[in-house]
């Protein structure tokens, strides 16, 4: 399978502190790659570096062979246009309605007419189950609905890669399941490559094709593979402890 994202020897800092060092991993086309780890281990910092918000201290991130942080500003913008990002709280622009939120990327980067944009907006909102909510403002929605609306905006331009930052955080189990199902649909129906940052085990096992576990103590990735394989085969007590919520072998170590 074609590799879409290659991360090589990446070192990350948060302020002055080294968060993660020597990260190496690949994300393949059409797969759901999960970046997992405990709170504060650097998952979100890694995500921000991957989506172009925080430069790395060292190392490379290659998108289809192009080294993101070595390119000039214009080339980076071009690469970023192939991303869709769902932020932890949805990050909807609060002064715009849902319809306007989803329409904005289309107004910027497509040559569609206003009427065509309206149709696409309704389609995207419909895909996430918010077809009738185009005229609502973010403040009028529940947390789960805001996340789904954020997802509709993230997929507005049919991106090649969609990043999810803690998609299940703060959601009730049913809303979290609905979002997991949406992630699977995006992979299966749209063929999108998906990177999910999460520590929710239910989501990890439901959606993850491949995964990487970050460890805050060693500041490295301590395991990589399909989540179910890691659970079945890993002998590293830290991995078993994380994937069983500390209930199985290795929990006391």
């Amino acid at each position, binding site marked *: 399978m074609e590799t879409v994202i290659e991360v090589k020897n990446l070192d990350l800092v948060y302020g002055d*502190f080294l968060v993660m060092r020597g990260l190496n991993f690949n994300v393949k086309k059409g797969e759901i790659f999960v970046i997992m780890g405990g709170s504060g281990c650097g998952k979100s910092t890694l995500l921000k570096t991957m989506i*172009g918000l925080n430069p790395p201290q060292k190392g490379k991130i290659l998108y289809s062979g192009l080294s993101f942080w070595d390119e000039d500003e214009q080339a980076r913008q071009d690469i970023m246009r192939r*991303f869709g*990002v769902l*932020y*932890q*709280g949805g990050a909807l622009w609060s002064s*715009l309605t849902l319809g306007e939120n989803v329409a904005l990327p289309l107004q910027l980067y497509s040559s569609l007419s206003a009427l065509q944009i309206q149709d696409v907006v309704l389609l995207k909102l419909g895909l996430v189950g918010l077809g009738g909510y185009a005229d609502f403002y973010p403040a009028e929605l529940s947390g789960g609905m805001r996340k789904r609306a954020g997802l509709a*905006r993230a997929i507005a331009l049919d991106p090649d890669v969609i990043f999810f930052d803690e998609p299940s955080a703060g959601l009730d189990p049913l809303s979290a399941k609905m979002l997991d199902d949406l992630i699977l649909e995006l992979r299966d129906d749209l063929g999108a490559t998906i990177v999910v940052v999460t520590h929710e085990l239910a989501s990890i096992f439901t959606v993850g094709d491949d995964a990487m576990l970050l460890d805050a103590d060693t500041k490295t990735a301590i395991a990589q593979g399909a989540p179910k394989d890691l659970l079945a085969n890993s002998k590293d007590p830290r991995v078993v402890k994380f994937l069983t919520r500390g209930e199985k072998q290795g929990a006391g170590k």
Partner: protein
Amino acid sequence: MSSGKLTFDYLESKILQLKLSGDWQLSAGLPSADEVLAQLDSHAGITGVSFVASQDFKWDSAFISFLFKLRSISKERNIRFTVLGLPPQIEKLLKLSPAQAEKIIPHKTVEEPFLDSIGSRVIGVKNTTLSVLSFLGDIVLAFKRFICGKAFFRKDDFLSIVQRCGADALGLVSLISILVGMILAFIGAIQLKMFGAQIYIADIVGIAMVRVMGAIMTAILMSGRTGASFAAELGIMQANEEIDALKTLGVSPAEFLIMPRVLALVIMMPLLTIYANLMGIAGGFIISTGVLGLNPVEYFNHTITAVKLNNLWLGLIQGFVFGIIIAVSGCYRGMQCERSSTGIGEATTSAVVTAITAIVIATAIITFVCQIIGV
């Protein structure tokens, strides 16, 4: 004082057994370990401490705190400490002893040596300067794209900001300007009355309002009202990752968020200044003609004669400069806001403080320059 009861027994003269009954809860007061300490002091050769609880024994975290103390005393005296006679949950809670938790020292509490702290401050000033220059550069580039017709921003948002900066501020500007005009008239009247030259109140009020007071009062009001609002809006957008979402979409926040705000305020501030001038003159007129008994026509004619066009231009230039200062301070502080509720509060406060300080400095510079060029 605890209402729990504590009695003692000695097993084989070596084990001090504590017999507990009654209420050992927070609501009854924290139990003291002094009684136990006295028993240990008065009986040499104690090698262990144990417990027996009666049926009516009630406990909560107050009792756990009592046990922490006893355990610590036992450890110091090399006495065996066992809680076997107590409810099993107590043993679990004892494992959470604060003494067992490894103390983590926050990075920020480490005190820097004197020279390091000076160095850090110098680096901080350099970084802030670079950050302000970079921010101003982004705004200039955004305006360049706006002039070339390439800037991406929502016209509805711009009009809404114009409305908030302009029409919505009229009430407050009217009230304050009228009052300032009235105050100037009263102060002028006290002095001019001594010379029988009360009619010159019109000159004082007119020149003071148009030349400086109108612009300054409007600027101070707008920095508290609109500058703070810009900082809070952008700060909340920062905290909600809305600005990150714009950046990943390839939209420049300077173009989409900051440029419309600066433009709106730069347009509205000179207009509000003219309005404040008129309101201030009206305030002076009301006091002079209504209270001090001056002739309205004479007052009006004196005002027209006294207020020169260059005074008006000077006021408008100040309004324009203050508009830039308020908008840039508000937007800069908002964009630099930390992602927390405290950060938003600090951003709002520092936006107002920065704007007012910069307004006073700018007024001093403009006044000095005007003095030199004779305006």
